[in-house]
Each structure stands twice: as C-alpha cells, then as structure tokens.
C-alpha cells in the first residue's frame, strides 16, 4: 500500500471519514504520520473554537474585574482565581462529573458529557480566565496620556472605551495573549486524558500517538512525531498572532513596537 492510499484512508479518520478500522498490524511510518496528523484536527478544533469563544468572555471578565462595583468584580475575581489556580487536568475531571450530573437531571444536557462540547466548554472557561487576567493587566497599563487625549477629544463612556482604551489594551496584551494561545493549543492534548471518552476511535493527535505506541510497543516513534507536529503548530500560532500583532501596531514607528517574546509573560 502506498503512502498516498494510506493518506486517502486515514487523513480524515479522526472525524469519522475513511477507513472504519484502524491499522492493526504492519504499522508503517506513513500510517503514523497520517493518523496522528488526522488527530491534529481535534486539537485545532478545540484550540481555535475555545480561543474564539474565550476571547469574548475574557473581555467581559476583564471589564467586570476593572469596574468599581463589587457585584461585578467579586464574581469575576472568583472565576479567574478558580480557573487559574487549579490544574486543567482536575478541571476536566470535575467538569465531566458536573456534566454527568446535569445529564442525569435532564437529558437535554446529554451532549455535554461528550468531549466535542463538554471539553470545549471547559477549555473555553479556562482560557477565558487566563486571558481575562492578561487583558485586565493591560487595561491597567494603558498610558494616562491616551485617556487624557480621549477626554480632550470629548470622547466618553462606550465610545471612549471602544475607540481608545480597547485598542490600546489589545496592543499591550497581545504578546502575553499569544503565549496564552500557545499554551491553550498544548492543553488540548489533555482532553482525552481525564474523564472524557474517545468515541469510535476518533481522538486527537495524542490519542493516535498513544495507540501506535501501544500497538508497536515503542514510544520512540509515535511520540516524537506528535511532538514534531506540535512544534509546527506552535510556529504557526506565532506566525498568525505575529501578523495580527503587527496589524494592531501598524500606526506606531517601527522602533517602539512591542516585541513578541514567547514565554510565560509578566502578567499571565
């Protein structure tokens, strides 16, 4: 069997298209690359969707934390503390139990116990908490001059926020937010490691890597392959976020643009 045929059979296996049964014997390197790559679809799915949904929630949370009203601030602070203060691994586990209980109370919640929705929600809440802290820190770091300039233009309230504060906040937060995005993509590998079951062998990249490591009894091929995929994914995230960051800073002179540094940032 050529590698092209393998690709046709297994490239979309993780979403249920193609060969029904996974390879059982005579494993080739090509099969491992294709299937593990296929699993990457789920990592992308979880990463992209939770990042998008979490972005909006994070903005709301950051604003809530920045307001004077304790009715908004306290819950936001509590939410951020719980999700930033505990390991995602344990959050997945507890979320799974919670979703199970909800399902037993009312069958409407049945999809929640499945990874595609339940894990997605957990990841969204998790990244929202981290991003909210980043945005909050950035909001507090907005230069006084920007606010004074907005006042001088007669801007106030919502339009001042939308046209002056928010863009500056995003610019300041962007390097740290890029890191958060990278960590989030890495965190998607935990989805099938606690609680949530893999259905019909439709799993993420790590699931297929573990499958091959188990079947070939050799951890030194499949795991390095998935590691390689993640290095590429990380580079892609840096590329995309770098492009957005440049766009956010396009009005600034080249020398004053904040440079992206990949690593846990100061106010993550």
């Amino acid at each position, binding site marked *: 069997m050529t590698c092209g045929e393998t690709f046709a059979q297994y490239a979309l296996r993780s979403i249920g298209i193609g060969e029904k049964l996974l390879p059982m014997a005579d494993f080739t390197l090509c099969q491992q690359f294709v299937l593990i790559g296929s699993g990457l679809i789920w990592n992308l799915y979880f990463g992209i969707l939770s990042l998008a949904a979490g972005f909006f929630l994070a903005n709301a949370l950051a604003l809530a934390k920045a307001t004077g009203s304790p009715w908004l601030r306290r819950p936001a602070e509590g939410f951020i503390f719980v999700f*930033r203060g505990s*390991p995602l691994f344990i959050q997945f586990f507890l979320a799974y*139990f919670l979703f199970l209980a909800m399902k037993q109370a009312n069958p409407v919640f049945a999809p929640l116990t499945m990874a595609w929705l339940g894990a997605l929600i957990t990841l969204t809440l998790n990244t929202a908490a981290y991003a909210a802290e980043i945005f909050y820190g950035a909001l507090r770091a907005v230069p006084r001059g920007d606010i004074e300039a907005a006042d001088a233009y007669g801007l106030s309230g919502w339009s001042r926020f939308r046209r002056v504060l928010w863009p500056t906040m995003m610019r300041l937060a962007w390097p740290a937010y890029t890191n958060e995005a990278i960590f989030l993509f890495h965190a998607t590998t935990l989805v099938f490691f606690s609680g949530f079951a893999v259905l019909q062998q439709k799993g993420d990249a790590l699931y297929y890597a*573990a499958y091959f490591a188990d079947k070939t009894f050799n951890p030194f091929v499949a795991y390095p392959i998935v590691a390689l995929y993640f290095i590429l994914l990380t580079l892609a995230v840096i590329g995309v976020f770098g492009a957005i960051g440049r766009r956010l800073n396009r009005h600034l002179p080249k020398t004053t643009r904040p440079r992206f540094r990949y690593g846990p940032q100061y106010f993550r």
Partner: protein
Amino acid sequence: MFSFCADPKSLEGIAWFACYLTSGKHLYFYVSIGTVLLLLAITVPVALAFGFAGAMAARSHFAPLSILGRIYISAVRGVPDIIFFLFVPIALDQAFEWVRHKTKCPDWTEPIRRGADFVVCPQAKLPLSSSPQWVHETYGFFLAVLAFAIVFGAFSANVLYGAMQAIPKAQTETAEAYGMTRRQVFRRIVVPQMWVYALPGLSNLWMILVKATPLLFLLGIEDIVYWAKQLGGSKRSIESEYPHGDWRLAYFLVLLVFYLGMTKLSEGVFGRLYRRLSHGQATMAGEEQRRGRA
C-alpha cells in the same frame, strides 16, 4: 490506626470515617502531598540552573553554543509537557544505562537492543536490580525531577534571557567605562539586578509548574492524583474492608482545594518578595517605594 478499627464492618458514622481516613492507603495519600512538595522544592533550583545555563548559552558570542541554547529553549517549549513526559524519561533512563554500559562493560559483546528489548549488562543497570525498593523509587523520583527541570528550564531560560536583556543599557555601559570586562559586568551588574525583572515571569512559571504536577503519575510517581484515583474508585468487599461507591468526585474536590490553596499561598509570597526586590531598583515599583518613603 485506632484500636477500635480492628473490625471495620461493625463501625458506623464518625468512627467508620475515622478508621477509613487513617487506613494505610490514606496515609500514603497524605505522604504523597509531601512527595509533590518535595519534588517542587528540588525541581525549582534545578530548573533555574538549567534555565540559567540555557540563557547564558543563548547569549553566548560563540555561535554553535548560542544556536544550541536557542534550539533548546524553543523546541522544548513548542511541545506540550504531557507528550514530553511520555517518552523523554524512558529515553533518559536508557541513555544513562547506555553510558554506564559502555564504561563498565567494555567487553560485553551481545547487542544492547534486541528487538524491543533494551538490555545492558547487570552492573550497568540503573538502579542495580538487586537494590532495595527505595532506591528504585528515589531513582524514579530523580528522573521525574530531571524531566520537569528540562521542560521548565527551557521556560525559565526564556524568562532569564529576557531579564538579562532588560537591565538598562546605561548601567552596563557605565560599568564598561569603569574598565570592567564583559564577564565582570555580567557578574557584578547583570546578575544581581536581573532578578527583579525576572520575578514576575518566574512567579508565573512557578504557578504553571505547580499546576503541572498532576502529570507526575505519568512518570510513575505515586503522587496525589494516583492515590486520589486509587482511593476514590468504588471498592467492593473483596478489595477493601471499607467498601464504598464511586467517590472520585470527593477526592478530586480535595485536590482542587489543595491546588487553590497552593496558588493563594504562592501569590502572597511572591507579592512580598517582589516588594522586597524592587527596593532601590530603577523600576516603577522601586520608584514608588522611594517616593512613598520621602
């Protein structure tokens, strides 16, 4: 533990729980909290050392060293820690045994790799197969520390590298004007001052490190997650004198409280440390302290 625990079947209510929560298995659970804390305590300095070495290498003027440092920093951070832990500790173990094999048994003619097997001469085994159990456990612990240190060393290398670059240029230039060599500038000016710039990043890293410890069970360490799973699973009378249903939820809530407590505590400690380090520094926080006192 208690004398009335001899026959758990006759117990009820508080007495049952008193005996249940002090069973040998639970004592292991409590001890494993110590194991996690010990691992953290050992990993931090080792990871900082790795990080320091990595940052120095990346800053080096010797191109191959600099490239090596940069590859270490970016490759390790590009890989999710869980994947790293799934194959690197076994690889490290085999690498150590291979080196020992080459030095201790040069006359050994049989191949080391036989099919799937990795066989070194008995003297090269790590630990020796005749060693008592605690030696094996200590060695496993050492491998776990090393794996954590490699991952978090890469992250801290990045933070320390940034901190070294953040020292105001004027200071290093002044030092050079006084005739200090590059090495002296590094030792006398850069290293003492870099910590205040590194602290926010390092404190953040500490939080990430704490939250990575649930992955210890992947490294064969019997950590709190291992025992919480063991204890929480439903028990039938054949397995345990304290049969019960699925209590994993309760045990994971305990873990949640443990980690939240750790986070709260760390935040307090780092807040203090930061105020202390900012003293007399040319940063906003240092400036505020100065003005506050004046």
